């Protein structure tokens, strides 16, 4: 993101915070897009925002929804649970009825409680922690898989293909990272592999040398990391430096090009579970080109799910012929939608009926190839 658009974005966020957003257009259908615009994981926010904005733009170009234009209101939660609750309150106060977000599981969960209570429809394109849809809420959906799908995918791959002699599982003690690490732990244990080490590091920790020394001494040959890329990047880099050459694997929270910027050559060969790359689907060719024309990257894991989330809101408003969020939630639960992530239908709890995670090998130049 260049400086100008960053400033434009902060101005936009500022305007939203000051409540000016509400004065602009009275006859639009506002969708709040909530995620990290700043902070250490803002890269993912970019994916979410670009997908959502593209959907709004394309839907408006086709005449909008029931004669009204959609309007994306971008809101920054920095992926902080406290901040997420604060901005959820803002969304409530601005009487916005639909939210595409949040992104991090840790911030999605507390915010979802407010949306449920206030009858606001929430579709997260990125939060994968299973607990979010286990609260019995009616207003909460997601256009992405869950860690209890992703964890077993990773765990099975480790147990069946890698067969490590000594496996270590590390996580960042956050809802997302620890949740998925536990799923992997459960799956490999069921396959008869007991990790030699299951430990949490601190979010924002920079020195992992002591942990690496310990793994090296214990002869660990495979490490699963549950968390995000800043910590894993440093872990990879310091492992390589100490001559600890175990292979690493992580969830979609580590799969963006910053991991290579931090870890450099040490990111070569990292395994990552990601949603399938929807941008390679021939049905999405036109959409991919639209992204490329705007010099945006359509390959990020949350771009298409965010697009789909906006589209589902729009399609539901059209199909149900109402803007009442509670009725829309019912409609969404009962119908299926043709989106860039395929034909989607939801379970009663708001999870997708089907979603597939694929394993990729990450390369030092920040590209990825699917593992056969």
């Amino acid at each position, binding site marked *: 993101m260049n400086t100008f658009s960053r400033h434009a974005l902060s101005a936009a966020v500022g305007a939203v915070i000051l409540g000016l957003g509400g004065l602009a257009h009275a006859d639009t259908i506002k969708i709040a897009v909530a995620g990290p615009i700043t902070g250490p994981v803002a890269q993912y926010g970019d994916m979410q925002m670009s997908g959502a904005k593209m959907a709004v733009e394309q839907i408006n170009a086709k005449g909008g929804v029931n004669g009204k234009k959609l309007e994306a209101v971008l809101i920054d939660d920095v992926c902080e649970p406290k901040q997420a609750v604060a901005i959820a309150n803002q969304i409530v106060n601005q009487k916005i009825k639909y939210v595409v977000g949040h992104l991090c599981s840790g911030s999605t969960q507390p915010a979802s409680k407010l949306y449920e209570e206030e009858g606001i429809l929430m579709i997260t394109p990125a939060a994968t922690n299973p607990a979010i849809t286990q609260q019995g809420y009616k207003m909460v959906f997601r256009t992405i898989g869950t860690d209890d799908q992703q964890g077993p995918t990773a765990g099975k791959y480790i147990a069946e293909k890698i067969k490590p002699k000594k496996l270590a599982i590390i996580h960042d003690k956050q809802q997302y990272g620890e949740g998925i690490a536990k799923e992997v732990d459960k799956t490999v244990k069921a396959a008869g592999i007991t990790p030699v080490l299951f430990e949490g590091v601190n979010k924002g920790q920079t020195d992992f*040398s002591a942990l690496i020394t310990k793994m090296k001494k214990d002869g660990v040959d495979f490490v699963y990391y549950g968390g995000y890329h800043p910590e894993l990047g440093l872990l990879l880099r310091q492992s390589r430096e100490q001559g600890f050459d175990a292979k690493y694997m992580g969830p979609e929270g580590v799969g963006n090009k910053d991991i290579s910027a931090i870890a450099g050559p040490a990111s070569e060969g990292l395994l990552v579970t990601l949603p399938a790359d929807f941008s390679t689907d021939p049905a999405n060719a036109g959409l991919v080109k639209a992204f490329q024309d705007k010099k945006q990257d359509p390959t990020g894991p949350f771009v298409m799910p965010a697009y789909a989330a906006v589209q589902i809101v729009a399609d539901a408003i059209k199909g149900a012929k109402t803007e009442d969020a509670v009725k829309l939630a019912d409609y969404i639960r009962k119908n299926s939608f043709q989106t860039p992530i395929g034909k989607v239908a939801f379970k009663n709890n708001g999870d997708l009926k089907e979603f597939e995670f694929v394993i990729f090998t990450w390369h030092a130049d920040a590209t990825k190839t699917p593992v056969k």
Partner: protein
Amino acid sequence: MSGFSLLEFIQQIINGLTLGSIYALIAIGYTMVYGIIGMINFAHGEIYMIGAYVGLLAITALGLFGVDSISAILLATLAISILVTGSYGWTVERLAYRPLRGSPRLVPLISAIGVSIFLQNYVQLGQGARDVSMQPVLTGGWRFGPDDGFQVYLSYMQVLIAAITVAFMTGLTLFIARSRMGRACRACSEDRAMANLLGIDTDRVIALTFVLGATLAAVAGVLVSMYYGLVNPFIGFIAGLKAFTAAVLGGIGSIPGAMLGGVVLGLAESFASAYLQTEYKDVVAFALLILVLLIRPTGLLGRPDVEKV
């Protein structure tokens, strides 16, 4: 878990000393300011963060200009970072603390917290809130131990961190012990009002203290950018907290105490990570702090300070 290994133990000492050196460099800034004006400068962590940013930007810029000699990069980066960070230290003191001199102790403390928040947001607006990363400048090191077993790895960077830390600490100790300004510092630390009556320009001494503290924080910042290669506007908070702990552990107000405290804290974290669980490293570090304060309320090398009322 397999048994005790001497080589692993040595490696953990190396890890701990490297981490401890960085803590110690930052801790000095806390301890010096406290020693002279009895105030905890909570903005010091942010000063270190600025040092790290300047270091990273300088290294990147030097790379663009085609400077590829490690020692040239190191010296130039240290000089630039010390200069910039030192002037931040001076400015902060001048604007946020000097006008409050003579007010109750809590007032400058609040001001310090304000400065800390201001600097964090200021860097965030100027540089973006994202992580900024950089590939290592100095790579490689020595390996010891059997070819087929656990090898101790001592990187050039770790040696450099230890060497630079020792060099700057020695310099500071000599400066305080031998130079005229150093004597003035010690006099202010003993009794500021009396020193003032005897003709010492205490405002100048205090400004110098802040600049010296910022200098060492800048050195720590540069070393951290070179070693870890990742900075963001929020690194000052955790680093500041740890360094403050190190300063209290060693005895706040005592310079050798801050050095010792930093090293002890680094080693404690390293060993807790190694022989317990990584989760417990902060628990162990802070439990150690409580224990030391229970037995020696003034910290490891602190002087009892009863006469200040």
